[in-house]
């Protein structure tokens, strides 16, 4: 059964002030209703005025996503009632959005972007005495109300959750490279997803916050729809809500009453002409695709690894480059980032930015391996402690009293001793029995308490028995 998914992504733009008033957007950790004014609270008589920076940022995003930017745009009132909406209409864009017809390539496939537009964020609601379906009342904090949102709408081009994940990751990295988005902020990225099985009705899941939840919500919804089909039931056209705690989706409202947004032109604002010279005046930084190319060329690392590093997030790519300044074995660097570092970050559910991993300490770890002071296997153990704590790898080695092989000479001594003690095995090896080699390696490893690198040991045995 083919799955069709289309998504709408809302991201907070990194302006200092809100979209239509001069209140600060720095809402995290603030007292409720501290960053509000009569404009973003929609008090009678207040008037909006658009923040030019938000449009600049929108243009940059539209260019990066290969969209056509409309030469003249305007804002519209999208009318619907909800306690998080100060005016019971949202200033958004309708007929002529900022940009249309773009695409983003992931896994060798183009995901089409239908439109990009700007709008104001509503408030944050706290549902008191239950969840959205069972609360007695709500508490509204309008600090978030009016923060510029960039809404990106895709065509229903995704056929798997994996594609959605890849898309969001790359999109986020692009927006970060443009310096218009901070992925570390909670509620900074929210997704509405339309999901259907081929030939069936679609369900819309509203307001999923964060990447991980998007995946969970989609997976749940796909299974739910498949199960319904299996027992011969139809999927109903409806809006669903994702509950992050139970990791499941629930009916929010059936589509029997269609909300009619009754769009009108926002008469308190003017049209905005976007000239070519305006577009050209905005500096386009190096974007992820270009950065991957450069990484391959400049650092001679495999494209697959470069892509992982750059598309996960900008911070990881920056981390790679910061490390590269103090550590020149780029292949080794890339390999360790893509495999063990990422694995550990994911395991701890943190990003590089949130972690205490710093270039200096990470390179220290790599150098321990290079100098043969620790084996790769041991390094894999050390990194598990290093990532969540940020402790110096040398310190970890000392604290754990991990025996390290100080050098090749020391290892040679051990190997020679093993050869002496196992004459029969050595003879077998010389006679071409491969199993004997593993037997000898095992003995060496035992003696070195697994701190020696089996590969090196193997080579040494072969060399010394010739």
């Amino acid at each position, binding site marked *: 059964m083919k799955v069709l998914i289309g998504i709408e992504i809302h991201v907070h733009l990194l302006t200092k002030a809100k979209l239509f008033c001069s209140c600060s957007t720095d809402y995290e950790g603030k007292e409720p209703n501290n960053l509000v004014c*009569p404009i973003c*609270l*929609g*008090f*009678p*008589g*207040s*008037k*909006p*005025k*658009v923040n030019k920076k938000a449009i600049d940022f929108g243009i940059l995003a539209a260019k990066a996503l290969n969209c056509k930017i409309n030469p003249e745009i305007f804002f519209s*009132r999208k*009318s619907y*009632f*909800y*306690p998080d909406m*100060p*005016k*019971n*209409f949202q200033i958004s864009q309708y007929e002529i959005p900022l940009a249309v017809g773009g695409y983003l390539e992931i896994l060798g496939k183009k995901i089409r972007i239908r439109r990009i537009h700007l709008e104001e964020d509503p408030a944050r609601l706290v549902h008191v005495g239950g969840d959205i379906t069972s609360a007695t*009342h709500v508490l*509204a904090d309008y600090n978030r109300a009016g923060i510029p949102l960039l809404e990106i709408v895709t065509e229903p081009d995704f056929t798997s959750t994996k594609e959605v994940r890849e898309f969001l990751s790359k999109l986020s990295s692009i927006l970060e490279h443009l310096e218009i988005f901070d992925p570390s902020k909670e509620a900074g990225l929210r997704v509405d997803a339309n999901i259907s099985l081929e030939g069936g009705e679609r369900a819309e899941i509203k307001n999923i916050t964060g990447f991980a939840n998007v995946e969970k919500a989609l997976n749940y919804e796909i299974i739910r729809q498949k199960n319904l089909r299996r027992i011969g039931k139809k999927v109903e056209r409806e809006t669903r809500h994702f509950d992050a705690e139970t990791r499941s989706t629930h009916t929010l409202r059936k589509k029997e009453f269609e909300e*009619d*947004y*009754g*769009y*009108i*032109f926002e*008469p*308190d*604002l*003017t049209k905005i002409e976007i000239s070519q010279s305006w577009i050209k005046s905005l500096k386009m930084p190096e974007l992820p695709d270009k950065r991957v190319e450069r990484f391959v060329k400049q650092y001679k690392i495999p494209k697959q690894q470069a892509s992982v590093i750059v598309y996960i997030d900008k911070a990881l790519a920056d981390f790679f480059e910061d490390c590269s300044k103090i550590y020149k074995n780029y292949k080794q660097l890339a390999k360790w980032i893509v495999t063990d570092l990422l694995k550990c970050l994911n395991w701890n559910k943190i990003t590089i930015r949130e972690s205490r991993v710093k270039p200096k300490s990470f390179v220290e770890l790599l150098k321990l391996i290079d100098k043969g002071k620790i084996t790769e296997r041991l390094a894999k153990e050390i990194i598990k402690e290093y990532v969540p704590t940020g402790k110096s790898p040398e310190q970890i080695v000392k604290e754990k009293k991990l025996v390290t092989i100080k050098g090749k000479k020391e290892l040679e001594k051990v190997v020679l001793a093993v050869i002496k003690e196992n004459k029969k095995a050595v003879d077998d090896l010389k006679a071409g029995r491969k199993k004997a080699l593993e037997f000898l390696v095992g003995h060496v490893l035992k003696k070195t308490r697994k701190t020696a690198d089996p590969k090196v040991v193997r080579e040494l045995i072969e060399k010394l028995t010739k």
Partner: protein
Amino acid sequence: MKSLVKEHIEKIKSGKISLDEFISEIKKKIEKIQSEYSPFITIKIENPEKKGKLYGIPISVKDNICTQGIQSTAGSKILEGYVPPFDATCVKKVKGQGSVIIGKTAQDEFGFGSFSVNSFVIPKNPWDKTRVCGGSSGGAACLTALADFPHIAMAESTGGSISCPAAFCGVVGITPTYGRVSRFGLIDYANSLDKIGTIGKTVYDTALLLSVISGYDTLDSTSLEVRDEDFTKYCEENSKIKIAVPKEYFGEGVDPKIKDLVWKAIKKLESLGAKYQEVSLSQTTYALPSYYLIAMAEASTNLAKFCGMRYGFHSELKGNFEEYFSQIRKLGFGEEAKRRIILGTYARMAGFRDAYYLKALKVRSLVIQDFRRIFKKFDVIAAPTMPVIAPRFDEVKKLEPIEAYMMDVLTAAPNLAGIPMISLPCGFVKSLPVGLHLMADHLQEKKIIQAAHTFEVNE
């Protein structure tokens, strides 16, 4: 007519009158007027904080213009008790020039009407208490006519709400070019049409207050970035005025006696050196439906914010938000507001918006072009302000909504086009005042002030 305002400013300056004495004297007068005619929703007399161009001049403010610390309801129960946390830009400006704010004048709920009907008080016509003052700035015109002390009113017009009451009450009202006066702090009716203007006893008074309140404001995106003007300097006689007289404004529905008076006024201007010519404004009949469709569509979105949560009328939180909001709105809005919410919502609904709302916006373009064409050759357009004299309360009660809307038939077009206009008295029919309406091209306030002044001093 002599300007009491002009005299008063000189007297205060020269110390001939004490401001404190003057204020306590007008307090009594205001109370007396209020008890007989009810022009105010809220009376609150504030001493000036500064000296300036309007030092010591009483200014009344229409209730839909926000005044910090003074209840501002726009005539609606849904905003009862609402105390704005800020002053409208125009209020800030008059305060900055030393005026004495005296209170908030009555109006139709949110400006929806021509009779100043609202949830609180309904002002009575100064010439005949059984008649209406017109609207929606009825309280402003009523008070202006009755005050025997210097006073100018800050009023507002969306589709004729300054000209209509000025005509019905026999005073002067200027509606400036859209965007000339900042709307910041004006409780919206229809944002693309709303204009703050002035009502006074003389052309000079209205021009003086307009000079103070107009000008570019960074807080209003539709505020025009034009150079400040002292409009009082256009209170001068100009004998070389070219007047257009549009035949559509003298049609069937217009009281013949009013037509006669307006023609007399035009001839009078001609005798003073002006030239006139009859013209046609062919889009006139389409202006009224276009105006109403746009105004209602915008109004219905503006009124959405009133839902009993953050300010204004609210009750105990019961039911879910749909139930609670619907209840509050049912109880808080008057009948005309409800009608306009329904019509406005309907006009912008999917499937209908192209035929109603968008069509109306296109008709607006044609109405503007119509005026542009005339103003290429003429300085001003002259017409009657209202088709009838002020109706009696018992007549108004019997009117169907559409009949009430038709009252705006002569004012809808210029308001839709956002051109400046002035209404000034030009005689009486059945002892009730009649308004002469003069209109000019965008930003040509100078021309209507000159023409009006020329007529006024020679009446």
